[in-house]
């Protein structure tokens, strides 16, 4: 029992919060502002709680497992959710169903926690669905917007289809090996064609969630149509969680088939970077733009994953931590502008610097970090991913990745140019930023600057592997 409490503490806390919200909602006694504040405090506590009373171990006959690394990964996700609750305060306050939104979001987060901790394909499947279905509902949260429902429709249908493929793959694995436990699977894997087929079916589900080319096509549409908070949740939290479990699965479960998945990861990584960048080049809508840029980022994550080493794990976790800060900062700025001015196009940002220097600088920092420009943390994150990937010694792979950094720089600079350089006779008015959003942006900015320069963070992560 004690084991149960400590090992499943993150999930229990989240569940507790969900129920708390449910009761509050039923009580109908709180104004939106107060409610949001309560939620923010709860999420902060949830994040902080992640640092205490942690233990390593397994539960339910190996279906659930946790290690310090997994706890860290969960903490990163909690941090992201906390930041989301801060950054999109504007939108939350206006929303009629805010507690529901958070309930859904936390449910999804709960699903992700289980996902990361899963030690069994059944657990994995359940957690994956738990982390997907609420998000589809969230995507439809702008109930009166056509695009929102279209996005939700695309999301739920695509993910249902992808689940079908995944399940088919799992059934093949089960058929081929007779087990669905992560611990037992490696002994049964021998690289037979059926297993390769199963691997690729399984892989496609990960690829779908991570938006790896060519399984990425839903991403941009859903990102664009969904409310900004959902977009950022999808692109940061959801991706982070799947990247963690993806890496764990490849490294631990499919280690015997390493030679095969290395090639798979490599070619898809290249494709993802290239396609993501090429599409990002021509986007006008900031959300769609960030969607494709995040696809390109996933290409880099794959690069780190391909290294199949401790350094790979460390650098991916490190990168996702940085990615949380950078991408959320970018979305936060976009949300602040969208909430007050209703503009989502990059061209609308022209001359932003004249009226909103704070937002402009945060946006610049975020984009530089995404582009991997020092001294922002993104530089270190990307560099370590590249270094980890390079340890396999494939120059071509690294050169393509490095050249992709240039394409990505081009489009990030396009936004910078709009913000800082282009003349605009009617720039956006001075935007009054919500205090909590401002706090969120500052945390992100601090994170972007410090996570890279403070090298002990990296070492801390590495010591957990």
């Amino acid at each position, binding site marked *: 029992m004690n084991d149960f409490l400590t090992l499943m503490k993150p999930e229990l806390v989240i569940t507790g919060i969900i129920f708390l919200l449910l009761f509050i909602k039923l009580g109908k006694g709180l104004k939106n502002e107060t409610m949001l504040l309560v939620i923010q405090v709860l999420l902060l506590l949830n994040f902080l709680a992640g640092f205490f009373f942690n233990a390593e171990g397994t539960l339910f006959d190996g279906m659930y497992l946790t290690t310090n690394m997994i706890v860290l990964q969960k903490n990163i996700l909690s941090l992201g959710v906390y930041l989301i609750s801060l950054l999109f305060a504007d939108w939350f306050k206006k929303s009629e169903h805010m507690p529901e939104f958070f309930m859904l979001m936390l449910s999804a987060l709960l699903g992700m926690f289980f996902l990361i901790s899963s030690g069994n394909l059944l657990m994995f499947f359940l957690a994956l669905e738990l982390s997907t279905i609420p998000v589809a509902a969230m995507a439809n949260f702008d109930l009166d917007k056509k695009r929102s429902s279209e996005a939700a*429709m*695309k999301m739920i*249908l*695509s993910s249902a*289809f*992808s689940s079908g*493929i995944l399940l088919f793959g799992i059934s093949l694995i089960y058929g081929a090996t007779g087990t669905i436990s992560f611990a037992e699977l490696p002994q049964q894997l021998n690289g037979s*064609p059926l297993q*390769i*087929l199963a691997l*690729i*079916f399984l*892989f*496609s589900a990960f690829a*779908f969630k991570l938006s790896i080319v*060519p*399984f990425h*096509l*839903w991403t*941009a*549409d859903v990102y664009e149509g969904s409310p900004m908070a959902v977009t950022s949740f999808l692109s940061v939290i959801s991706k982070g969680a799947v990247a963690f479990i993806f890496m764990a699965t490849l490294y631990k479960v499919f280690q015997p088939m390493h030679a*095969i998945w290395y*090639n*798979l990861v490599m070619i898809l990584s290249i494709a993802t970077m290239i*396609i993501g960048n*090429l*599409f990002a*080049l*021509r986007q006008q809508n900031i959300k769609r733009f960030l969607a494709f840029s995040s696809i390109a980022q996933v290409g880099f994550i794959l690069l780190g994953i391909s290294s199949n080493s401790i350094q790979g794990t460390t650098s991916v976790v490190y990168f996702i931590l940085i990615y949380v800060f950078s991408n959320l900062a970018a979305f936060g700025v976009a949300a602040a502008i969208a909430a007050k001015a209703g503009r989502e196009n990059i061209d609308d940002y022209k001359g932003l610097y004249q009226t909103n220097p704070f937002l402009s600088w945060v946006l610049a920092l975020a984009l530089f970090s995404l582009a991997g420009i020092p001294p922002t943390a993104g530089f270190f994150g990307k560099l370590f991913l590249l270094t980890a990937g390079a340890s396999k010694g494939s120059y071509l792979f690294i050169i393509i990745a490095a050249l992709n950094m240039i*394409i990505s720089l*081009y489009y990030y600079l396009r936004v910078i140019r709009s913000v800082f350089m282009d003349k605009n006779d009617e720039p956006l008015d001075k935007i009054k930023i919500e205090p909590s959003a401002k706090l969120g942006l500052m945390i992100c900015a601090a994170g972007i600057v410090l996570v890279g320069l403070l090298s002990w963070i990296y070492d801390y992560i590495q010591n957990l592997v």
Partner: protein
Amino acid sequence: MPNATYIALIPLLPLAGFLMLGIFGRKYFKNTSGIIGTTLLLVSTVLALYTAYGYFFEYGKVDGIYQKLVPLKYTWLQFSEGVSIDMGIILDPISAMMLVVVTFISLMVHIYSLGYMKGDERFPVYYAFLGLFTFSMLGLVVSSNIFQIYIFWELVGVSSFLLIGYYYDKPSAVAACKKAFIVTRFADVGFLIGILILSFHSGTLDFNTLIATLTSPETAGYKSAAAASFIGVSALTWGLALVFIGGAGKSAMFPLHIWLPDAMEGPTPVSALIHAATMVVAGVFLVARLFPVFAISSPNALSLVGYVGAISALIAALIACTQTDIKRVLAYSTMSQIGYMMFALGVSKYGGEDGLGFTASMFHLFTHAMFKALLFLGAGAVIHYIHSNEMKDMGGLRKYLPITHITFLIACLAIAGVPPFAGFFSKEEILLAAYEHNPTIYWIALITSGLTAFYMFRLYFNIFWNKEAHVHGEHKGEGGFAMMMPLVLLAVGAAVAGFIPFGHFVSSDGKRLETAFHLQFSIAPVALGLAGIFIAMWMYKTENNKPDKFAASLSGLYKATYHKFYIDEIYTFITKKIIFNLIGRPAAWIDKNIVDGLVNATGNGTKDISEIIKGFQSGKVQQYAIYFLVSVIGLALLFIYWWK
């Protein structure tokens, strides 16, 4: 040993003048700058005379041979072991002689300019530039290191550039200064590469060591230089020939002479100093400095020097006969006389009696400095008076400018080689040397000497006789004491300098050389000279149409010479048409369209691809699912069947 400080002060004083006047002149020395510059130079001159006296009569001679002393030397830039640029002073007969010539002529010009440039708004700048030039020229003549000479070589080039462009708002002056700089610069590349070759083989840049290495066949440097060859010519000869190209550019030898006539756009005293007496003989000086190497190790290079000199002398003399701008006539005459000095070196051998050409060349350099400076300063006085350079605006000036007239006549006689004026003696030695060693050159020289007399007296008669003067505007007289004093002093020099027993002091090997005087040999040149004078007198003494008729009868030759044999046009063609249109323009075009175009094409291509593939993101969820399934199956096939 000489006192190095004194010698170092000779060039450094003008430098101090340059810095002082250049930086503070406009503010503090608006009116006094001329005096300051002149005073500093006077001190330099005295020191130079003192040094020369000391060298020639006290410590220079050891065992009857004038030594090459290096009283001062410090390392300026160390390239590698043994190869370094040193800043130093070498003292040998020619540098001592040049010190005197340069300081003296410069002093004369400084004094003269006090009158000539009076009232000019950039007076301090003018004196600053004169100071810079004098410094550079003095630095050049005392250089102990071949790279040092190159450094000062460039510096005299730039001071010449600055002084030619002194009247900077005159477009012709701007064009001239540019041309002068670029043409000499072009030649300097040859010099530079020559230095590289010589220094590579000799392993040093120091003159004394370099000469010692490259003249003794047993050294490794000599062997490698003689053995290495390129299209059949040894590296040593290449090196020397390239060095000579540098000298030819500075000394306006054919075909690099085109800058010199244009350089007359500068103030006339500047022309006297730089483009007549000192800088233009730097090429001669350079060859003389390396003379042992030329003469002992590479006779081929030396005969190149001889022929280039001879051809230049003749061509310049021909052109001078038809020019109407008096300064241009003098410019071509300068070129012609330098040609003399060059071929005198070219026909000389090293040591003893055979080294007569060397002595003669240096002697001519010395006397030429006197009378050519005098001619220019005289011409300056005329221009000062009449405000024109054109012969057609002149005539009958002997009444108005008596002192100028007399001094100018003395100079003309000197250059024409009429005894007993200075030019006679030096030219006679040159002709003798040529006669003894190279008949072709001798005949060219002889013809040239006749032409020289003709065009000089054409000039003289056109200015001072011919038609009656029609002077308009106010009378300014001859320009006062400041302008007349140098004329007189130089005239004295031009008249008596020939009596100096030059061979006693300057000879190819430092030993005393007795120069005999051969009466019977002198008859031909003197007679030719006198004939030239009389023809000029017949044609130009009074206003008549003989010159026109004469020109018409020789119209082809006349036209060709009047247009300076179209050499300028050829150069214009090469630079404008070939270098600009065939190299520069394509380079710029390639850069803009191909190199840059490729860079831009990369960017645009990426965007185009992005546009082409946008169809995959069709917005149809069913198509997404199709791609999904196809990819899964495709990857599965790829990994199961092909990429195990």
